[in-house]
């Protein structure tokens, strides 16, 4: 190939403008591609920036170099008018196949550059990831922390789950609270109020049911760290509202008790057969819980009259009440007296460890065991409960 026949190649006169990202990196980008972004366009035309390295167009905080590359790819494709609508659509669909973190960053950057079509495209992709998915799936996709309590999840709009177990729980709970309130009025015992119960009814149910693995019925209990006791629902919910708007408080407040007491509302969505079955289950359940409790309670209370210093058995904390019930039920179901108690106690500890139920205070267990172990009327000396029990 001689020199004469070599074709003359006209160099393409592309103009470039300088842009500077938030981390200080200054680079050149093709002008017509960058002008697709309204913000850059305005900077160049109105402010006259971008012509040299010194006065580079300062891109907003949210645009880092990697994302800038993606945005420029998008602009480069779309600013060419020759593509058909179908081509553009295929390009868009391929373009948004990114991981969620990148997608969010891209949306944020496009918004700061005022590139509306790209914002719509990425928002639609994110919306597709949210629509129709369960909350767990969404949390997994976006790495959201599950830091709402069970109560907070159920209020204010009860539109989430129709699980009959939740309803069973609610109903039982309402009934229990009513009964306990009555008992409280009858007894009128001064007791120390215990530190707020860390567990809810869910744990007990799962424990009693032998950890059947009803994930729905015990939603979120395993990961919950800061769940509040259901002592005072209204107080609980109004403290969540940091804004402290009165309207919201009252709104939230009126809705949450509605949850518990509005049995009629719950019943509406069941048909009669299911309703009967659930009622029967509730009765059953309540009976199981109540079978041993009254007598035991009496004994412990009478013997505890003399030494009330460290009697932390509560009556008002309904959750802990149930906790005791469950534990003692198990213990009672096995042998009555003697060294078998130790065995069952060890088994119970084992089960606790395996099913990851929060360890109850050693002191109370010990106290109870001592109570039952020794004769019913002997007063028990309150020894130092910080040491584990020494078996005779």
């Amino acid at each position, binding site marked *: 190939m001689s020199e004469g026949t070599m074709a003359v190649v006209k160099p393409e006169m592309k103009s470039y403008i300088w842009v500077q990202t938030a981390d200080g990196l200054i680079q050149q980008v093709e002008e017509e591609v960058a002008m697709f972004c309204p913000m850059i366009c305005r900077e160049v035309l109105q402010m006259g920036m971008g012509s040299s390295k010194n006065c580079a167009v300062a891109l907003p905080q949210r645009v880092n170099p990697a994302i800038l590359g993606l945005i420029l790819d998008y602009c480069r494709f779309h600013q060419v008018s020759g593509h058909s609508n179908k081509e553009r659509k295929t390009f868009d669909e391929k373009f948004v196949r990114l991981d969620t973190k990148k997608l*969010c960053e891209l949306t944020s950057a496009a918004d700061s550059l005022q590139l509306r079509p790209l914002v719509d495209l990425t928002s639609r992709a994110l919306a597709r990831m949210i629509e129709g998915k369960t*909350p767990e799936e969404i949390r997994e996709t976006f790495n959201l922390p599950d830091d709402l309590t069970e109560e907070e999840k159920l209020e204010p709009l009860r539109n989430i789950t129709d699980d009959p177990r939740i309803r069973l729980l609610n109903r039982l709970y309402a009934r229990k609270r009513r009964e306990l309130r009555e008992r409280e009025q009858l007894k009128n015992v001064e007791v120390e109020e215990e530190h707020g119960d860390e567990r809810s009814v869910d744990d007990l149910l799962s424990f009693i049911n032998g950890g059947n693995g009803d994930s729905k019925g015990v939603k979120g209990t395993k990961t919950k760290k800061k769940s509040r006791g259901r002592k005072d629902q209204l107080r609980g919910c109004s403290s969540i509202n940091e804004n402290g708007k009165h309207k919201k408080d009252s709104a939230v407040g009126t809705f949450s008790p509605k949850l518990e007491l509005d049995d009629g509302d719950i019943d509406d969505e069941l048909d009669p057969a299911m309703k009967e079955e659930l009622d029967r289950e509730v009765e059953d359940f309540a009976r199981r819980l109540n079978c041993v409790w009254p007598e035991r309670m009496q004994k412990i209370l009478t013997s505890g009259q003399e030494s009330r210093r460290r009697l932390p058995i509560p009556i008002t904390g309904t959750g802990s009440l149930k906790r005791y019930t469950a534990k003692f039920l198990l213990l009672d179901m096995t042998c009555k007296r003697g060294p078998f108690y130790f065995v069952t106690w060890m088994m119970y500890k084992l089960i606790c460890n395996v099913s990851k139920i929060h360890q109850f205070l050693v002191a109370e267990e010990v106290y109870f065991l001592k109570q039952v172990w020794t004769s019913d009327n002997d007063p028990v000396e309150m020894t130092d409960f910080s040491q584990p029990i020494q078996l005779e």
Partner: protein
Amino acid sequence: MPLSLSLSLSLIRASNEEEKDRRRSTNPEVSFFFVFHFWYFNLKLCMDSILGQDVISDLPQSIVETILTKIPIRDAVRTSILSSKWRYKWANLTHLVFDDRCSSLYNDKGLVEGNLVKFITRFLFLHDGPIHMFTLSSTYLQGSPYIDQWLLFLSRKDVKELVIELGDRGWFRAPTCLFSCRKLTRLELIHCELDPPPSFKGFLSLKCLVLQQVYIAPDKVENLLSSCPLLESLTLSYFDSFALSICAPNLKYLCLEGEFKDIRLENTPLLIFVSVSMYMTDDTAEHFEQSTSCNFDKFLGGVPCLQRLIGYIYFTKYLSVGNELGKLPITYSHLKIVQLYEVSFEDMKEILVVLRLILNSPILQELQISSSSNTSLATEATDLDFWENECPSDCTFRLLKSVKIADISGVPHEMEFIKFLLRNSPVLEVMSIIPSTCVTDGRINMLIELLRFRRASAEAEITFIQN
């Protein structure tokens, strides 16, 4: 995670052993320091990769709103249980769209309606911030008293766009609080009853008004229209026997559909787009025959900026009624697209209307006409000499590029019209001819005639579309 655990555990064990060996020689804190940092570094890595970062919760509210408006509103509310940051993100939405998807469907319509009402009421109660757009389209909700309460709530929230579309079963009467939404820029009402109170001064910011199947007195409509000075787009559908006089100085888009007795565009100088669909019954047709005023002038006499005209069934018939008052026809110097459907080529008056329109549009680019003639009736063609004698022969459609004539049956006037167009369109590119489905035999004859016509444009392509 387990790997780092075991590593760090072994390290701790190792360091402990070392500690035991050299009890006083080494500083136990140093080993702890190394162990701690190793542990922390590993933990951080693992946290980032396994737990990941929650980026979406920190996006600005405008983006979150864009995302949440692209999913059904029920799902948007469900995001409140995702995490503590998402608890009230849904409550700041400004564009609300409620439809039948907000309630799960049951067979019992009353139950669905009850659920829908509950959902919307609770939503509005818990909503925080301004509401710019509110759309309610449901077939289950009728004149529920809750709708009045919602409208009252919205009127206090400075709502800007309001769309209410209700089912067919009953009539919803719009409450008077609707007329106190001062900041409305768009109002769409479908199937309801409207009665503006006497103290109503108008929507001063209203730009777009759509009234479909709305029961309202005619003079109130005119008052409403004249009291909205910024009105740019007007759509009136399914009105019965209206005599309407539109006075809207800023009106650009007009769409009329229904049985109109009389339409007068009094003051619409900026009108760009007109689409009219007239449903005529027998008595309205009679009324037309007796009318003396020229409909053409009344309707198209004051729209010099018109760019696109679409006339559906009976439009040309409506325009053809009345005598010309001898006024000089105005030139539609911006009219580019004309679409006239169901033009009867047997009625000379309608043909005159069409001609008058296109002859006064110097920059006409696209013409679509569909015919409603019957071959059986028009076997005898009268006034055929019109085309030779009276029709102006020196007109040219300088910019006419695309013509589409549909549903023709080979009626003589139709062929003459096509001939006329072909002769006077020097830049014509495509002429599509679609024969009527009723005609099967006469197509060959039509084609033969078409072949003979002289074409002024060298590039003209005649496509005969059969299906």
